[in-house]
């Protein structure tokens, strides 16, 4: 199998899984049959020709290198939807969103020219995979399941699954980065509301029982 075909097949994985997830929608009773049907319909939808090119080709034009983290997270979500058994717990998801948001904040503003330092160039250096391996090891020691997914990042990079040889592209992409920033913002907002509510409860006369 040529490297070019491997790149094309891998680039199609994330759009396929994401489309299948969208087709499943918020159905409260997803079955295995529905899951397989969603995957088949998503595959067919990606072949729809638009302006002489398939929908997949247009998506690949926009993002030829979906990150291995995003592809892994989509597999986890679909698995959880159709098998019912949760693979990731709440704390695993929290770490996934925090990792994505931190990566996006480090990579995009500086990588797109904010300073004379180019964080994207770090992706061609050997220290970035080692830094990721240290983080993944720590998460695995703590028993966080996002650490298992991080093992796939250097593996995919080693196997040249992506068109890009830059390690950042294996770790994060604009979709995963943007989604992570939204989720982390919601987490922070949720925490802030909880803290406010707790303060309000403490400050109120009924909460204190006097005053």
């Amino acid at each position, binding site marked *: 199998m040529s490297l070019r075909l491997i790149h094309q097949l891998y680039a199609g994985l994330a759009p396929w899984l994401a489309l299948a997830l969208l087709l499943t929608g918020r159905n409260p009773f997803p079955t295995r049959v529905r899951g397989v049907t969603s995957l088949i319909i998503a595959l067919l939808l990606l072949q729809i020709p638009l302006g002489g090119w398939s929908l997949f080709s247009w998506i*690949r034009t926009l993002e030829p290198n979906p990150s291995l983290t995003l592809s892994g997270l989509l597999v986890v979500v679909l698995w959880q939807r159709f098998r019912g058994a949760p693979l990731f717990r709440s704390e695993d998801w929290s770490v996934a969103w925090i990792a994505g948001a931190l990566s996006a904040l480090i990579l995009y503003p500086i990588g797109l020219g904010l*300073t004379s330092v180019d964080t994207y*160039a770090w992706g061609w250096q050997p220290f970035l995979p080692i830094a990721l391996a240290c983080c993944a090891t720590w998460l695995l020691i703590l028993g966080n399941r996002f650490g298992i997914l991080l093992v796939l990042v250097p593996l995919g990079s080693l196997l040249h699954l992506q068109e890009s040889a830059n390690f950042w592209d294996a770790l994060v992409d604009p979709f995963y980065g943007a989604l992570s920033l939204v989720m982390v913002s919601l987490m922070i907002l949720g925490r802030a509301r909880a803290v406010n509510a707790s303060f309000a409860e403490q400050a109120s006369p009924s909460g204190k029982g006097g005053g």
Partner: protein
Amino acid sequence: MPVALRTLLIATLWVICGAGFFSRNEGPRPGFAVVPTHDKIGRLELKNPLTLRFDSAPVNPDQGLPMVHVASLAETSDGILHCVWYGGTAECHPDVKIYLAHKEQRARWTAPCAIMTREQAEHDLGRPVQALGNALLIANPDGTLRLLFVTIAMGKWSGSQLNTCLSKDGGLTWSRAERLTLSPFFNLSELVRNRPMPLLRGGWCVPIYQEFLGKFPELLWLEEHHYGLSYRKSRIAGGCTTFQPSVVPLDRATAVAVLRDYSDDRKVFRSLSEDGGATWSRPVPTSLPNPDAGVSGLLLSLSRILIAFNNSPLDRHELSLSVTGNGGLSWARPFAFEHEEEATFSYPFLMRTTDDSIGLAYTRKGREIRFVLFNEPWLENQLGPYPYKEP
């Protein structure tokens, strides 16, 4: 998660990282190749110091396209000059093609032939391409020619990507084009322009630039291998003031970059590297004006630097040459070799040929690629003897 599984995963992770560490190719190392004609004191030896030479001829006299632009030159080891440019109805138009012409010594340019079309790029890359753009030729020491070219996926220049292909027969046939991934955000938007520099340990340092959220200068480090191309990039400066660098190595470690200006200063900027191009000083304005137009620099004898630029802060109606003897701190009074009101002369590309002449290609009035060949004695005849008086 069971402890045995965790241990197995951690061991697997580090084995993968170890394999990746030892198989990873970081690309070429900084350090410029010394110009072959440098003598021991770092000066160029001129082969025919007393003969004045100046020739000027169109590269594409009968092409008849509404727009041609961004010429680049390369000379293969057999002494044949190659020139590439793009042409079509207008910039970013779907009918734009990349053209190539050759010139043997003391011969005319061959008729231009299209070496890359939008359809060919779409076929090679397996995805839609809206238009083609800037192209650059690299003449490898083994006689092969590498073409770097811009494709536009969407919008205009900010939606562009860099691609490459290789010719082993002097430009007659080309390998399947492949995409270079150089930017983290949807691989937008990298462009190429100006002469590549050979590196000390093999490979090339190619000036590139980004114009997406900001416009800033970068360097692409390329290395040819038996299995293909390895590459990485580095940055000269960030922000949104200067771009389209032209790098002039003075020796293995020192290089000066002259840059197109995007700010209100309307000056040619300069930046200095003292570690073979790895890091660069903050770009500062020179005394030369710049109307937000491309510039090109070249090393002369006595470690002087020649620059071709538009000598106006407003428009591109005059194309001039000037020389600095102190790394760009001060410049000689410019010599205008193209000047016509209401006309444009732009995107100069300077190179040194193997017979010690200086080749200059540029866009003349938007419809012609002009090639000028001169030597240092001719240049000194125009600018006066060194050291120069500042204007």
